[in-house]
């Protein structure tokens, strides 16, 4: 895209500010973009070219698509230290087609001598930050739509397709239209049995699947500050379902602790008056949420579905099977049994989450309740190979319940938090977790 840089520079309106002079109010998103574009400030609508600090891709979006295109261009990776490859979509390999795809990834990783490869360690959006690759202030892209997860660490991160990833991998750069910042301000405290997934499902139901219109969303307010890092990741992750380019949470003390960063690093935050839109929500009045088939935006009251029987309760995915999600499920199921005829499937988001769940005794609680443990990976959520049977009703902690995604078109998938999925497994029908969390 080099031929456009000059045009872009003209349209960017570069304006350096003298000492002591204040520039226009900048949101966190604008500050992160401006830094990556080498500018003092950016305005909404500017088209800028950003230098990429981290490019993440997986076995499905990465090598099998990038390798042939790189060969066609006779080009090389711009900076291998800034590339992370995660094998998570087709592992463990279910058939020959999957074996072929994963082999391409493994062979290419060796051939290219990539320094950062995580093979069958869990889902990229969880594994990559857990290994410290995403730090506050960075500008990152990922070959997966749930890449905004990285925004939980005060970084600008968004998903791109494989061809665009090729452009990044070859040039280290990407264009961007500076988005508006939509603030989601959550005050109050979440009640017992209510979590970040419920906040997100409520926002998606309220604004719709593309409600954020590819702008940047920033989550602010006391209820957000109070969230653990994993819960913050759940919010940012499902910014994708809001249709945002990214979801952001400014780094703070919790972020630094989680990343083991020194305390004297100044946290970047949005300037007063820099939000283009601000919406207010009260966490204290939020109840457990449910999205009915076939859209994450199809929010319905749980009470209206209390007679809906389920066949499978699925706790999996980057948005629904981190340690905190497993803890929530165990709170519900500790010392209890799941209903007969119901399958409870648990696929921890990463091997680290699995190990910690074991160490805390959570995994044993879930297994004692009747759960079946599945491998850590994208599994049924990605729907790569149909998982669920014709006509089955599933309640799931995953991100999307599009028709035909997780099974045949007749599969009915409801989305909810791991509290709600666990409570529903226990009763055999869709259940408000507050009824069983006594």
């Amino acid at each position, binding site marked *: 895209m*080099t031929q*456009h840089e000059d*045009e872009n520079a003209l349209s960017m309106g570069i304006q350096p500010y003298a000492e002591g002079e204040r520039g226009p109010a900048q949101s966190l998103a604008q500050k992160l973009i401006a830094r990556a574009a080498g500018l003092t400030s950016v305005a909404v609508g500017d088209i800028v070219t950003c230098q990429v600090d981290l490019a993440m891709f997986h076995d499905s979006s990465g090598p099998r698509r990038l390798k042939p295109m790189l060969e066609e261009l006779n080009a090389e990776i711009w900076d291998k230290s800034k590339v992370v490859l995660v094998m998570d979509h087709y592992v463990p390999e279910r058939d020959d087609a999957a074996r072929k795809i994963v082999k391409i990834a493994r062979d290419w990783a060796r051939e290219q001598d990539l320094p950062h490869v995580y093979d069958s360690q869990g889902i990229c959006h969880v594994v990559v930050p857990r290994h410290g690759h995403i730090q506050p202030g960075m500008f990152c892209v990922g070959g997966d739509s749930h890449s905004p997860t990285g925004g939980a660490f005060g970084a600008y991160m968004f998903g*791109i397709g494989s061809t665009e990833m090729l452009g990044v991998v070859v040039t280290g750069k990407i*264009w961007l239209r500076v988005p508006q910042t939509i603030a989601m301000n959550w005050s109050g405290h979440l009640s017992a049995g209510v979590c970040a997934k419920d906040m997100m499902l409520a926002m998606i139901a309220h604004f719709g699947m593309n409600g954020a219109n590819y702008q940047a969303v920033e989550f602010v307010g006391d209820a957000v500050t109070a969230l653990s890092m994993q819960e913050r990741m759940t919010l940012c992750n499902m910014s994708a379902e809001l249709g945002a380019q990214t979801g952001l949470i400014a780094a703070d003390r919790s972020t630094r602790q989680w990343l083991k960063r020194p305390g004297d690093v100044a946290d970047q935050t949005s300037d007063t008056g820099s939000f283009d839109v601000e919406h207010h929500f009260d966490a204290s009045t939020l109840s457990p949420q449910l999205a009915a088939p076939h859209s994450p935006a199809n929010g319905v009251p749980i009470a209206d579905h209390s007679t809906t029987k389920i066949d499978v309760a699925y706790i999996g995915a980057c948005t629904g099977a981190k340690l905190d999600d497993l803890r929530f499920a165990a709170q519900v199921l500790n010392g209890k049994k799941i209903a007969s005829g119901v399958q409870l499937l648990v696929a921890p988001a990463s091997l680290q989450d699995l190990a910690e769940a074991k160490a805390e005794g959570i995994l044993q609680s879930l297994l004692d309740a009747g759960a079946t443990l599945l491998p850590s990976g994208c599994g049924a959520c990605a729907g790569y190979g149909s998982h669920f049977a014709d006509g089955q009703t599933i309640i799931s902690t995953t991100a999307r319940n599009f028709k*035909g995604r997780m099974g045949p078109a007749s599969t009915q998938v409801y989305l909810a938090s791991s509290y709600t999925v666990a409570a529903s497994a226990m009763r055999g029908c869709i259940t408000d977790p507050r009824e069983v969390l006594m």
Partner: protein
Amino acid sequence: MNPQWQETWNKVWHVGDDVDTDALAPGAFMQHGIDVIAQHCLENLLPHFARDVKPGDIIVAGRNFGIGSSREQAVAALRHLGVAAVIAPSYGGLFFRNAFNLGLLLITSPDTGLLQNQELLARISPGLEPVFMPEKKVKKAPTPDFLLDLVRAGGLVNQLKHSLKPKDQK
């Protein structure tokens, strides 16, 4: 598949709001090549689309066309089938970027309601403008020139072939 403009009139296919990437490139077929994925493109909405669509045909869609995944097979399937352009009031953001990167023309128009005629024919002019028969005038949001250049180049890979500096190459 280039050039994407035509002199002949082509069929217009109509779909509604919120057509997602799983409808365009179903996950169950993602392990296969684009030839297989394309055969299942939109099968849940338009059962005979893959069989009957002809190169140069145009899709008129509702809001939020292409929401969901980053999988660019959602675009590649349409390109593979020869779809010349999509006209919709809004798109999934990832799909929008992917489309231009693969050389698929997206036209953003709030007026797709005026195009709800099952007999409507259309073609894309050399200036990458949609032309309809019977004639319809629709408002269009501007598309930056560098995105239209991507369409003319046939996508980013073709464009990179011409623009890569020697130092980036082996």
